[in-house]
């Protein structure tokens, strides 16, 4: 089983998506269980790849069609990609199990196909080592996200989807212009070779190209002025899909942004782009937290909180220091777990009580104690209370920000997290200490998942060493571009 079998990570979801029309006849239940089976298989492969990369310490380079880069397209599954492909697979598996109960709207086979293709898109975006291939996988994720946002076919869902399409469309077009410029001046599309040749680029082309690529990816990664589509898309999408959005779809965009940013560090205008990104990221945190303060719909509130945390990760990446990138990756892992937990729980409440408004959550402690406990753990963790996992990564990010000298950014982030604490604890109070209700039975599968995620949050909180060492290796994989170029077996092509 040499490394090339890692390409199954891409092939498996694809072939099973194409297989769905053939088994459509077996009925809705069969399709849903088929979806669970495929995501389980994907988790298995991802775990194998993760174990392979982390034991040997060397990244797996998958070369499509036996062509060595830059002639062919290569998948660079380094420490970060292995880690995050596993997170993508695990979260998709959990959401597939949740979809059994949560999705009732009709063409279930189409839903299964789109679900698999979102997972494929995110995995591809994280694993690819070619800049145009990144664009293609970003489009796969984006278009299936458009379809899934509008899946409920209600007025709001369609509205959210049209917003996402228009803004996503503009973003990806400008991203393509950026690629055209980069290709025009360097002649290659392979990321490693771009990193090598980036120094020699003409200054204005580099500046325009880098700015456009960063702009295109920033739309996908929800930085401040460009994330207007995000709250609507999170709110209107079906519940499992929202959890997938916040857990890994946006993170794939953020990762791509970080990866290209650090690849192009030889470009002259690099530092001013970083400064711009820091301002945008800090504003994201600020605006999103304040927007969540008086939300009537809990799902939209958690969507805002998720956008704010992603802004925080963006800030960590934009610092340009090794400690910043490590902290950002660690926060990415923690945030994925916490937000998957929160959206799963809120989705579960919305499915059983028919809606995610604040009134539905009154007295939840009496009606659905387990889900209420899960939301409480998720909320407390998201605020950054010690003995929970987000505390460690938030602390690291703030220390890195202050270390890099941006004390104003740290101050703004902390004011925003005070606001975050207020609205999360208001939610906890409404759940446990207000309102009445008799106990409702909670599905076994969902309760198990909630407990698993809550336990994971507390375990990483109490004993973060293992998670931190993985995050450090993954952070090094992004930050250390020299290693990246060394690992990719570039053929001496042309010049």
């Amino acid at each position, binding site marked *: 089983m040499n490394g090339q079998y890692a390409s199954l990570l891409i092939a498996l979801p694809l*072939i099973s998506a194409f297989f769905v029309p053939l088994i459509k006849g077996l009925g809705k239940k069969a399709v849903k269980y088929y979806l669970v089976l495929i995501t389980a298989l994907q988790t298995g492969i991802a775990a194998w790849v993760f174990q392979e990369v982390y034991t040997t310490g060397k990244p797996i380079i998958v070369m499509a069609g036996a062509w060595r880069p830059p002639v062919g397209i290569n998948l660079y599954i380094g420490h970060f990609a292995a880690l995050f492909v596993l997170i993508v697979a695990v979260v998709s598996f959990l959401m597939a199990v949740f979809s059994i109960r949560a999705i009732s709207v009709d063409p279930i086979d189409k839903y299964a196909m789109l679900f698999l293709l979102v997972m494929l898109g995110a995995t591809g975006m994280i694993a690819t080592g070619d800049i145009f291939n990144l664009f293609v996988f970003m489009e796969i994720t984006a278009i299936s996200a458009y379809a899934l946002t509008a899946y409920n076919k209600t007025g709001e869902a369609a509205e959210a989807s049209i917003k996402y399409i228009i803004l996503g469309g503009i973003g990806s077009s400008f991203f393509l212009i950026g690629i055209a*410029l980069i290709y025009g001046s360097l002649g290659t599309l392979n990321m490693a070779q771009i990193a090598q040749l980036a120094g020699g680029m003409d200054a204005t082309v580099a500046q325009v190209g880098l700015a456009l690529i960063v702009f295109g990816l920033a739309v996908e990664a929800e930085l401040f002025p460009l994330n207007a589509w995000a709250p609507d898309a999170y709110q209107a999408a079906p519940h499992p899909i929202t959890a997938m959005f916040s857990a890994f779809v946006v993170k794939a965009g953020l990762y791509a942004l970080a990866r290209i940013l650090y690849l192009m560090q030889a470009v002259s205008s690099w530092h001013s782009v970083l400064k711009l990104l820091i301002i945008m990221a800090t504003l994201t945190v600020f605006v999103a937290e304040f927007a969540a303060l008086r939300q009537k719909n809990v799902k939209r509130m958690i969507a805002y909180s998720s956008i704010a945390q992603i802004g925080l990760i963006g800030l960590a990446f934009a610092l340009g220091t090794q400690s910043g990138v490590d902290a950002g990756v660690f926060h990415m892992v923690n945030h994925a777990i916490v937000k998957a937990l929160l959206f799963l729980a809120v989705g579960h409440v919305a499915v059983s009580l028919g809606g995610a408004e604040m009134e539905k959550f009154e007295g939840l402690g009496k009606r659905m104690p387990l889900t209420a406990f899960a939301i409480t753990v998720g909320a407390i963790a998201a605020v950054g209370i010690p003995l929970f996992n987000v505390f460690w990564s938030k602390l690291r990010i703030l220390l890195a920000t202050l270390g890099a000298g941006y004390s104003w950014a740290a101050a703004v982030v902390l004011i925003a997290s005070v606001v975050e604490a207020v609205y999360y604890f208001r939610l906890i109070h409404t759940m446990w200490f207000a309102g009445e209700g008799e106990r409702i039975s909670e599905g076994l599968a969902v309760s198990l998942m909630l407990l698993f995620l809550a336990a994971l949050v507390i375990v990483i909180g109490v004993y973060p060493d293992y998670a931190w060492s993985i995050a450090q290796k993954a952070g090094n994989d992004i930050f250390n571009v020299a290693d990246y170029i060394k690992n990719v077996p570039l053929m001496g092509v*042309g010049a």
Partner: protein
Amino acid sequence: MLKRALAIITLLIIGYWLAQGLAGVPFGEDRMLVAQYYLDHVKEQTGAVNTVTAVVVNYRGFDTLGEVTVLFIASTGVGALLWRKKRERTAKTEGSIVLTTGTRLLAPFIMLFGAYIFIHGHLTPGGGFPGGATIATAFLLLYMAFTVYEIPHKTFEKVEGAVGMAYVLVGLIGLAIGGYFLYDWIWQDWGFGVDNVGRLLSGGFIPVIYTIIGLKVGTELSGIIDNMLKEEVSE
């Protein structure tokens, strides 16, 4: 009014900025790096004469795999969003005499021409996508000409799925035989058609993949047309 003026000013500045960026990439200059490698080695490495097709299918086959997925998502998405319990064609006016007889005559030839395009992908310009689109136009003609005509929706979906799987299977066979995903085992290992480069039976697995893509694009685009044309019938 002010809004339009503001828009124009903003766009002019952005345009100027893009132009400034593009000035650094002068038009018509030879800056080829990887492309030169492709042009030099395309004949003996892939057996195709049309370098673009070789790049699309063989060298950067992963892109095309993603490409096919994007179109598959489009057709599934349109199917998912416009799905209704009961859907019928509600077109009222039959096509004019010219249109109906023309369609009856031309439809098979258009399909044949589409097939021709994607079978000769590795020799002549165009490949799976244009071929598939031509086939879809044949079905569009049928839709416009006859108010009752409907493509066999269920079978088209099955064909779409099967052909998609075939594409990935070709890649997986490459993985099994040559150890690399999407490895062109027909050209590299079997060496089939090495002698007659430039004629039909050459180009490794490019014609195979292009036939697959042609069929897939054809069925998908006609599926999209079918979804969009039908209205919900509530009874």
